[in-house]
């Protein structure tokens, strides 16, 4: 049970009448300590060998069965898994928390490769809504098009679509990079908080609507700016970063990134910089 005690030192927020008490107690979070590396265990992960390769045909499986098979193959040490006949099924390849080469020979439905932390994924087809939602780390490459909410709430990693994406790409994005070779729909970067979005083609209306922070680069036409999204000058750092990322993404070789439009938050609606450090941590 947590104890409640009065905090004697007043912060700016407390002086405004906000939260005059602080919670103390034993945290349930686990923190990595290099001295205890041998004992550190990340639940749900497997040690895999990238040179150990196998194929899995999921044509006659539902998503639960297919995901359980993938997990079993990882537990057996397979580090490269090729999925045959995904045929637009939903929620395939989700919750993978270790390094892995995962290749889909076909298209995925909704919520493909969501909540992953580390794998390198290649989809030789299209993906439906909410691909890679909540991704923490890793790299996901989509060879064709993607549906709406592409990269919703991702926190890290590189998410690449070589074709076009639907509406609300990068909604609630908290980190990482989303790179799109084609066009993007309305509300791209809606309420994004951190990270970068790169659209080489055109974008729809309300770009960056209500964004808190982060950066959006657009190569083509912009339908309209959303609330509190503003254009900002390109810097040398932006250009260097874009060149490096597009090379990694294997797209946009012929794009002159210096001519792209850079869009950031105007910080009229939200401004992290005005928050107390403790509040900033909580907000993020």
């Amino acid at each position: 049970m947590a104890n409640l005690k009065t905090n004697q030192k007043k912060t700016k927020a407390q002086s405004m009448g906000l939260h005059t008490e602080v919670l103390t107690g034993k945290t349930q979070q686990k923190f990595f300590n290099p001295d205890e590396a041998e004992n550190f265990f990340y639940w749900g992960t497997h040690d895999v060998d990238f040179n150990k390769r196998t194929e899995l045909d999921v044509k006659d499986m539902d998503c639960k069965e297919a995901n359980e098979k993938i997990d079993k193959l990882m537990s057996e040490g397979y580090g490269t898994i090729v999925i045959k006949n995904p045929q637009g099924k939903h929620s395939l390849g989700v919750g993978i928390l270790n390094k892995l080469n995962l290749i889909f020979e076909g298209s995925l439905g909704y919520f493909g490769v969501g909540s992953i932390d580390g794998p390198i994924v290649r989809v030789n087809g299209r993906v439906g809504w909410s691909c890679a939602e909540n991704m923490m780390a890793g790299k996901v490459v989509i060879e064709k098009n993607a549906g709406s909410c592409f990269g919703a709430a991702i926190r890290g990693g590189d998410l690449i679509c070589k074709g076009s994406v639907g509406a609300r790409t990068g909604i609630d994005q908290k980190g990482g990079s989303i790179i799109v070779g084609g066009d993007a729909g309305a509300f791209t970067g809606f309420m994004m908080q951190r990270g970068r979005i790169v659209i080489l083609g055109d974008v729809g209306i309300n770009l960056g609507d209500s964004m808190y922070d982060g950066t959006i680069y657009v190569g083509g036409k912009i339908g309209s700016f959303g609330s509190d999204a503003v254009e900002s000058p390109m810097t040398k750092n932006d250009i260097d970063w874009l060149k490096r990322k597009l090379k990694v993404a294997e797209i946009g070789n012929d794009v002159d990134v210096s001519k792209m439009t850079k869009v950031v938050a105007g910080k009229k609606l939200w401004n992290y910089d005005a928050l107390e450090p403790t509040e900033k941590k909580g907000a993020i």
Partner: protein
Amino acid sequence: MCGIAGLIHRGKSSNVGEELQSMLQALKHRGPDSTGYALYADNDGQNFILRFKVGENVGEGSTSVNEDESVYNERKKLVDKKLSELGATIVKEEKLTPYSFRYEIKYTQDLMEFSKAIEAIESVEILSIGKSLELIKDLGDATAVSERYGLGKLKGTHGIGHARMATESGVDIKSAHPFWGYPFADVSVVHNGQLTNYWNNRRVLENKGMRFMSECDSELIAVFLAEKMRNGATLEEGMKESLTGLDGVFTYFVATKDSLGMAKDTMAAKPLVLYESDDLVAMGSEEIAIRSILPQEIDTYDPFDGEVKVWQI
């Protein structure tokens, strides 16, 4: 959330009944309450196909009031009598369920007056009138409805369908999709989404003489488009006007005797996946609907916000 599916074969006919059944069955998880089909069949085009119901399916899951089957027969007799008074000739009649009928009729007068007269009979609703359109809707999933009405062997060029999860109105046939574009022959609509200015639009349209049979917000789309077309707009023009005239979130399909169209609201809040080739267009709320008839690797995409497309057969 509901699931919608549609397909059009260009330049040939196919087994659209079976194909649409597969697509809708793949979307069953989006709407298990009722399923509807609007199929454009290879009819000879000589007579009108009149599909109507004289009562509701009061089976498991229905929110309708139970009625004795004898009242259905009485209402059917009243329909036959009214058809005769209107000068319509029944060429062929089929009783599909105790409450649902399919007639082939000869009729040459105004369809709006015709429809008003038939629907003036208590609990009688015309599901569709057309020379190609076969509109079937009932409680149950796609397979159950298809088997009940023998749709598996129906051949035609195109069709649209709907798997419904009842949210804003009852589990009954009158609220099920597709909706006929009263009073236009061969026009049908299916919709996934919610319309927030339903009552405002309904009041305006009713004052203009248009009719609503349910309190399902989706019916507004059919009536909205029908009213635009009645005033001379093309189907595509009417659909483009709907993007601003209808408020809310929607993806809908509309079909006529020789075309199929889709429209998506300006926020792209409802899903749609589309496959397009020279001889076939197939689309649905989820890609698995398309995969159920095209399992091979194909290129599909999501139409963008505010997009309207119309294809001809």
